[in-house]
């Protein structure tokens, strides 16, 4: 009996402590505004300067215009954010504003009722962003606003190209083959690829598929998950052609994409290879991998994926993807307002000026300072359509199976038909 009362007393004490600490936290929150108090939680991955400070300022500006609104920012490293979000989706405890990569992943979140439909609330912004928003639409409804959208292409070392006697960046697959030969003759490893992480290798197949397949076939495949069109097999054959040149860095099968000096990005950043096909984030990644923090510096060049003879796809179509702000289900209306504010001309211009990404608001296009990125932006804006990375578009399950098989293709252990079959098999599991 005595122990019981003691335990009860202990419980009461704990509860009391909890209330006290909660009250303490509460009073902290209220002291800043003292008003009605709407708190918006916001997670983002700009955890380095200038991005982190810029976003803090943006939030402060918004708070000043909206009395009573308090924005609670959590800036974390990308990987941390992704795993915290995954845990959040499991428990249903997600922040009011978070990043969505679109495609099949978003469709799953929508199906689970985790994301707020902002089609009507943000119709103006959606119209302004234009076609790029397609990757974040499910059944015609929009669930997130892309704030940065990049395309994949070849990043190259202009100095090494010169050294090998390559005068202009290749525009066709044959020219790319010639460039590889010239680089090899000059004793330079032509291309690095982080096939250890699979997706960098898979990007080759995505691009050849985009060249070989017409837009109709592709958009059909994304919705119906039917890969029977022969163009998908041809995509694999093109990859085999590229592999036949043996253009990749030694050990590419286990090379990681971005970690360390011997990763694919590290090899390009340190002048060990001449080029790498990567997304728009590459300059930033390379900066982090060099001691002086400059990456390739002014030796950085960029050219789009070349066209392929006899292709059915649009030669200007680009593979890409990006990040969008999504509002979770049940978040306050002010969260939608804040997301709209994040896409406004002012905020996007500042976003571009701080080199935080590639703005989707055309008003900010002129503010991208980096010349290589500006060139990339031109290609993106001139593209008839930007195809979302297939693995993102199809969702992790089909995308993962697809990437796995493409990695096997790179290892010489799968045929072009195997890639199609494995993808189809995973897609059939989905239905």
């Amino acid at each position, binding site marked *: 009996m005595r122990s019981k009362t003691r335990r009860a007393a202990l419980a009461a004490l704990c509860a009391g402590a909890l209330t006290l600490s909660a009250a303490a936290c509460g009073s902290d929150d209220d002291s800043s505004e003292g008003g009605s108090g709407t708190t918006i939680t916001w997670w983002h991955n700009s955890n380095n300067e200038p991005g982190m400070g810029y976003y803090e300022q943006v939030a402060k500006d918004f708070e000043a215009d909206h009395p009573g609104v308090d924005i609670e920012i959590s800036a974390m490293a990308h990987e941390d954010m992704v795993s915290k979000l*995954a845990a959040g989706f*499991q428990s249903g405890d997600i922040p009011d504003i978070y990043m969505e990569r679109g495609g099949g992943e978003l469709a799953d979140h929508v199906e689970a009722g*985790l994301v707020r439909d902002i089609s009507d609330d943000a119709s103006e912004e959606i119209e302004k962003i234009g076609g790029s928003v397609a990757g974040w639409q499910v059944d015609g409804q929009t669930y997130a606003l892309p704030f940065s959208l990049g395309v994949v292409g070849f990043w190259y070392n202009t100095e090494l190209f010169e050294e090998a006697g390559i005068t202009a960046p290749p525009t066709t697959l044959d020219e790319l083959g010639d460039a590889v030969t010239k680089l090899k003759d000059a004793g330079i490893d032509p291309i690095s690829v982080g096939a250890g*992480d699979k997706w960098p290798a898979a990007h080759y197949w995505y691009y050849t598929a985009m060249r070989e397949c017409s837009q109709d076939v592709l958009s059909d495949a994304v919705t119906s998950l039917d890969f029977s069109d022969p163009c998908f097999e041809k995509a694999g054959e093109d990859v085999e052609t590229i592999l036949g040149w043996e253009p990749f860095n*030694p050990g590419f*099968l286990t090379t990681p994409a971005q970690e360390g000096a011997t990763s694919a990005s590290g090899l390009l950043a340190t002048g060990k290879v001449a080029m790498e096909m990567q997304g728009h984030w590459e300059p930033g990644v390379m900066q982090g991998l060099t001691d002086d923090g400059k990456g390739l510096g002014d030796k950085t060049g960029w050219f789009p994926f070349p066209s392929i003879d006899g292709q059915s796809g649009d030669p200007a179509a680009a593979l890409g993807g990006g990040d969008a702000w999504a509002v979770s289900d049940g978040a306050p209306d002010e969260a939608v307002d804040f997301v709209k504010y994040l896409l406004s001309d002012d905020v996007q211009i500042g976003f571009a000026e701080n080199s935080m990404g590639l703005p989707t608001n055309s008003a900010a296009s002129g503010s991208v300072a980096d010349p290589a990125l500006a060139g990339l932006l031109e290609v993106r804006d001139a593209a008839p359509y930007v195809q979302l990375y297939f693995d993102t578009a199809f969702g992790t399950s089909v995308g993962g199976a697809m990437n796995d098989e493409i990695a096997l293709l790179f*290892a010489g252990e799968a045929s072009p038909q195997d890639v199609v079959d494995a993808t189809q098999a995973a897609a059939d599991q989905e239905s």
Partner: protein
Amino acid sequence: MTHEGATGPVAPTLTEVVTRRDERRVAPRPVGTGWRQRLEIVMFVSPALALMAVFILWPVLSAVRMSFYRWKGFGPMDQWVGLNNYRLVLQDEVFTDAVMHNFTIVVLSILIQLPLGLGLALLLNRRIRGRGLLRTIVFVPYVVAEVIAGVIWFQLLQPQYGVVDTVLTNIGLTPPEQGFLGTPDLALPTVFVVLTWKYLGLAVLLFLAGLQGVPDELYEAAQLDGASWWQTQRRVAIPLIGPTIRTWAFLSIIGSLQQFDMIWVLTHGGPANRTTTMATYLVEQGTERGNYGIAGAASVLLFVIAFVTAVAYQLIVLRRDTKVDR
């Protein structure tokens, strides 16, 4: 029991004790120690039990539950698929290959690490110069965290730029073009070499401890009988540390079946799925692909395989250590 009996004026028989204890249990208000003792046990055990329930039992049960659903990791778990996930896993060549890789590691560990570990232990058990230093060197890899060791070896084994390749090139050998970890046929053997480097220390440590328990008189007696050093080891020392060897083998088998960290760091299961294990398969399917149902089924299969192996080993090999012979 004898203790309780001693409290009575006359030592009671066994049945008496039992009945007395039963009486005590039904007594209306026990003044003695019965319920109090039980309460004490409950109080001491319950924190541990609660922790086990929350961190072991509950996750295990939810993995089992997950294995019967198609579930992406969020939203309601309501798509019951019966045994379909198990069918998918068992039909997946990547998983069956992974099981093969696990058992390859099991067999290689016994075949290679056992003689190597035993040899080193016998050597280090002799009074030789720098014995302490040698023992430390052998044991240090085991103390290093597996992930750290993995990262170091990953760097050493870098094709072209790594230390291993540089050394090989300098002495005129041609290292494999894709590197040791990147060449499909060399990847698993290379991983095994690293695992041996990592875990040999444990074998040596255990065997040394076992050898220290062998009484000196036995060695002396053997010497008096004219046995050579090698004969002494083979006929006296090794048989006497049999139980230690069998326990080490048990730990090694279970560890090999659950191998994850080192492979995840070194190869991620690649190249071309040549180094996947059951654990890397289920992590890949679960957290990477969002197929939590399939991951659940794979984890249950891993549990069953490890459990059956462990029980079989207990019954067949370890039984001779636990039963009283001689």
